[in-house]
C-alpha cells in the first residue's frame, strides 16, 4: 500500500538541506507520496531507512508471476476488497488436476485441453493457465515423467501437488525451466521441502489449517529468502473457504499484515464430486479473492461460463470495455438486408448483436466508436448525436454494401432522427425500439427492403 507523506517523512534525515530539489524534507516526502519524485533524489537517506521504506511501501498483497510456456501468469497484487473501490487486478489462474496414476491417454487429453479451451470474446482471450500435478503413484520417477510431459506437451504453469521430498525433487528437476510451484510446504515437511524452493528459486504454497501456523510458515520462508508464496488455509468446504479468503484479504489490506500478504489458492475440486457444483464453488472463489483455483477437470460447458464470469468480475469498472468500430455482418446479410447502428460499448454490442442473431434476420450492424459509452450515456456526453453519427455512416462504407438507403437507430435516440435526415440526404432514418429485445417484432412489421 502506498505510504502517506507523513509516514515517509519519518524515514528522511529531516535536515531540510534542499539537495533533492524541494526546500524541505517534508515537501520531498509529499512529492514521494504523490509519486512525483524518486527516493534516489535524496543522497542522505540511510541504507536502513531505504530498506524500511521499500518494505513499508511494498504492495499489501505480493504480486507473483508463475512461469508458463508463454506470458507469465500474474496473480496477487490486489488492492481492494470490493471491485467498485478501484478494480480487481489479476484474475485468478485456473488449474486442472492431473494425477501421475492416470492413463497416458487421459494425461494427454488433459494436457491438450489447456490449449484447446482458448476462446476469444470482446477482443479478450479467455483460457485456463495451469496444471496441478498430483503425486499419487508413490514413485518419484513416474512423477518426474509426468512433470516432463507437462513441460513439453503444454505451455501451462505447473503446480506440483506433493508433500514428499523425493517426489518434489524429481519432478521439480524434470520441469525446472518452467519454475514449478511446490505445493505444499507444511510444518511437517518444512525442513525437507523448503530447501528445494531455495535452491531452485521456486514459488511455494504454504499450507496450515490455522492462520497462526500459516503466518509462522511464511515468516520462516521469508527469512530463508523465499518470497513467492501462495497461501492455503486448508479449507475444503465452501463456507470455511469463503471465510478464510475474506480473512486473508482483510488482514492484508485492512491490517497491512505482511505475513499473510500473499495470494491464496482454492481447491473446489476437493469440495464436491458434482462438476456443476464445483464450477459454482469456483465462481464464488473468483468473486471472493482466490489467486489460483484448482478444478478436477476442464469441460467446456462449465469452464466457459467460469472464464466469462472471471473476465466480468475482473473488468475495470472505471474503463468500459469496447468493441472495434466498423460494420458487423450478422446472420449473413446481403445488399437488401437491414442496417442498424449502435455504440461501441461492448455490453451494448453484445446485447444488440445477440438479439439480432436471435431474430435470425440477416443484418448489417454498424458500430460507432463512442469511447465505450452506452447509447444514452454517449448521447448525453455528445458522442452519439446526429452530426457525429452521420459522419461515421458516411465514412463507414455501408453505402457501397446495400442497395437501399435506410438506417435503424436505437429508440433511445429518437430525438436525433430529424437531425440525421438533414445530415444524411437521401437516407431514411427509421427509429427502432428502445430495447434491442423488441427488434424482432419491430423488423417484422417495419422492415421491407
Amino acid at each position, binding site marked *: 500500500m502506498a505510504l502517506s507523506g507523513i509516514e515517509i517523512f519519518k524515514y528522511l534525515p529531516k535536515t531540510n538541506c534542499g539537495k533533492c530539489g524541494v526546500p524541505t524534507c517534508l515537501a520531498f516526502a509529499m512529492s514521494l507520496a504523490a509519486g512525483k519524485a524518486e527516493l534516489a533524489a535524496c543522497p542522505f537517506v540511510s541504507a536502513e531507512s531505504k530498506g524500511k521504506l521499500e518494505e513499508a511501501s511494498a504492495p499489501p498483497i505480493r504480486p507473483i508471476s508463475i512461469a508458463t510456456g508463454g506470458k507469465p501468469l500474474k496473480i496477487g497484487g490486489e488492492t481492494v476488497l470490493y471491485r467498485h473501490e478501484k478494480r480487481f487486478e489479476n484474475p485468478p489462474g485456473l488449474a486442472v488436476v492431473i494425477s501421475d496414476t492416470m492413463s497416458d491417454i487421459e494425461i494427454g487429453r488433459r494436457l491438450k485441453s489447456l490449449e484447446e479451451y482458448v476462446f476469444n470474446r470482446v477482443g479478450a482471450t479467455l483460457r485456463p493457465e495451469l496444471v496441478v500435478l498430483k503425486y499419487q503413484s508413490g514413485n518419484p520417477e513416474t512423477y518426474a515423467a509426468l512433470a516432463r510431459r507437462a513441460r513439453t506437451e503444454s505451455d501451462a504453469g505447473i503446480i506440483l501437488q506433493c508433500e514428499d521430498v523425493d517426489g518434489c525433487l524429481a519432478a521439480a528437476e524434470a520441469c525446472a525451466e518452467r519454475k514449478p510451484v511446490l505445493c505444499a510446504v507444511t510444518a511437517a515437511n518444512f525442513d525437507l521441502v523448503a530447501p528445494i524452493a531455495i535452491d531452485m528459486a521456486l514459488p511455494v504454497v504454504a499450507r496450515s489449517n490455522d492462520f497462526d501456523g500459516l*503466518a509462522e510458515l511464511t515468516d520462516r520462508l521469508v527469512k530463508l529468502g523465499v518470497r513467492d508464496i501462495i497461501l492455503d488455509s486448508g479449507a475444503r468446504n465452501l463456507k470455511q473457504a469463503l471465510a478464510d479468503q475474506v480473512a486473508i484479504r*482483510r488482514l492484508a489490506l485492512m491490517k497491512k499484515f505482511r505475513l499473510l500478504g500473499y495470494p491464496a489458492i482454492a481447491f473446489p475440486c476437493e469440495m464436491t464430486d458434482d462438476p456443476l*457444483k464445483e464450477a459454482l464453488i469456483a465462481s464464488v472463489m473468483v468473486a471472493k479473492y482466490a489467486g489460483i483455483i484448482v478444478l478436477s477437470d476442464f469441460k467446456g460447458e462449465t469452464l466457459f461460463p467460469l472464464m466469462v464470469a472471471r473476465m466480468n*468480475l475482473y473488468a475495470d469498472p472505471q474503463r468500459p470495455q469496447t468493441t472495434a468500430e466498423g460494420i458487423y455482418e450478422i446472420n449473413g446479410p446481403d445488399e437488401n438486408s437491414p442496417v442498424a447502428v449502435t455504440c461501441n460499448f461492448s455490453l451494448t454490442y453484445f446485447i444488440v448483436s445477440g438479439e439480432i*442473431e436471435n431474430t435470425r434476420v440477416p443484418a448489417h450492424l454498424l458500430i460507432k466508436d463512442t469511447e465505450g459509452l452506452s447509447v444514452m450515456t454517449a448521447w448525453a456526453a455528445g458522442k452519439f448525436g446526429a452530426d457525429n453519427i452521420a459522419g461515421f455512416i458516411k465514412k463507414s462504407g455501408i453505402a457501397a454494401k446495400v442497395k437501399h438507403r435506410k438506417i435503424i437507430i436505437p429508440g433511445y435516440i429518437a430525438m436525433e432522427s430529424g437531425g440525421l435526415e438533414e445530415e444524411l440526404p437521401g437516407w431514411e432514418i427509421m427509429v427502432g425500439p428502445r430495447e434491442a429485445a423488441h427488434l424482432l417484432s419491430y423488423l417484422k412489421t417495419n422492415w421491407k427492403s
Partner: protein
Amino acid sequence: MAVEIPKLNYTGSIRSVSLGGSDNTVTVGGETCFPFYTFEGAMPNHPRIAMEVYDERPVDWPEAAVFPFADVLDDPVAWAGKCVEVYGAEMICLQLESTDPNGSNRSSEEAARVVQKVAAAVDVPLIVWGTANHDKDTEVLRVVAETTQNRRLVLGPVEEGDYKKISAAAMAYGHTVIASSPIDINLAKQLNILMGNLGVNPGNMIMDPTVSAIGYGIEYAYSVMERIRMAALTQQDDKLQFPLICNIARETWKSKEAKVSETEDPRLGDPSRRGITLEAMSATILLLAGADILIMRHPEAIKLIKELISDLSI
C-alpha cells in the same frame, strides 16, 4: 503468533419482509452482515428462489429449458402446479409476457384472469411481473391488484415512470411492490424515497436493481448491489435497507451462449449443462452481491443453488 482477523462493524440491517398470504408466508431479508459473512453477523432468512411461469407459450427457448416443462408450456395454471408439486417451488413468479405491446398485447382483463387462476391453484407466495412498459404495466397491474385480493401478491416491476398508480393500487389491496431501477444506486434510492413519500409501507416493499447474466454486464449488477448493501449495512442508509430480488433466469437463457449447439462449437460442451451452469452461476454471483430472492427457471439449476445456499449457510 496470534493472528487477529479484522471484523466489520455493521451499524444497519436489512428489513425483514414477508411475502404471501397468512397461511403460507416466506420471509426474506433481515441480514446484519454482508451476504454469507455469518462469521460476523446474521442471515436469519436465507435467500429464496421463485420459479418462473409464463402466461403464454415461450418462443425461442433452448431445448434444455423447454424439456422440464414441455407438458405445461401452454397452461400457466398447470405449469405453476408442476413447479410446486414436482419441483417443490417455494414461490412462483408469473411473468406476464403476453401483455407486451410489442408482442401478443393481451388485455389487462385477460392477464388478470390468469393471475386469479394461478393464485387459486397454488398457495405459495405469488410474484407477478409485468413487461416494464409503463403504460401497459400501469393498466395490467392495477387490474391484477384489484381482481386478486386477499392474496398479498408481489407486484413489479414498479419504476419511476409508473410507480404512482401501481403503488396506489397495491396499497389499496394490501399487495407488496417491487421498486425497480436501472443498475444505479442513486436512481434506486431516489425511487425508494418517492415510493416512501407516496405512503408505501416499507414492510411491503422489495428492490429490483435490474440484473444481467454472465457475459452481459453482470459485473454492473454485482457492484451496484454490493454498494447498495454497503450503504444499507455500514452507513445505515435506511432508504436502501430492502431485500433485493433478481429476475435472472430470462437473462441467462436468452443469451447466445445458452443456445449454441455442441456441433457448432464442440469446445462449449453439452448445451443443456451449459445453460444450467450459466443460470446457476449467474445466480451464484448475484447471491454473493446480496440477492434475497432469485427468479429462476431450470429445476437442475435451482437444485444446485439450493445446495449452494445451504452449504454457505450451515
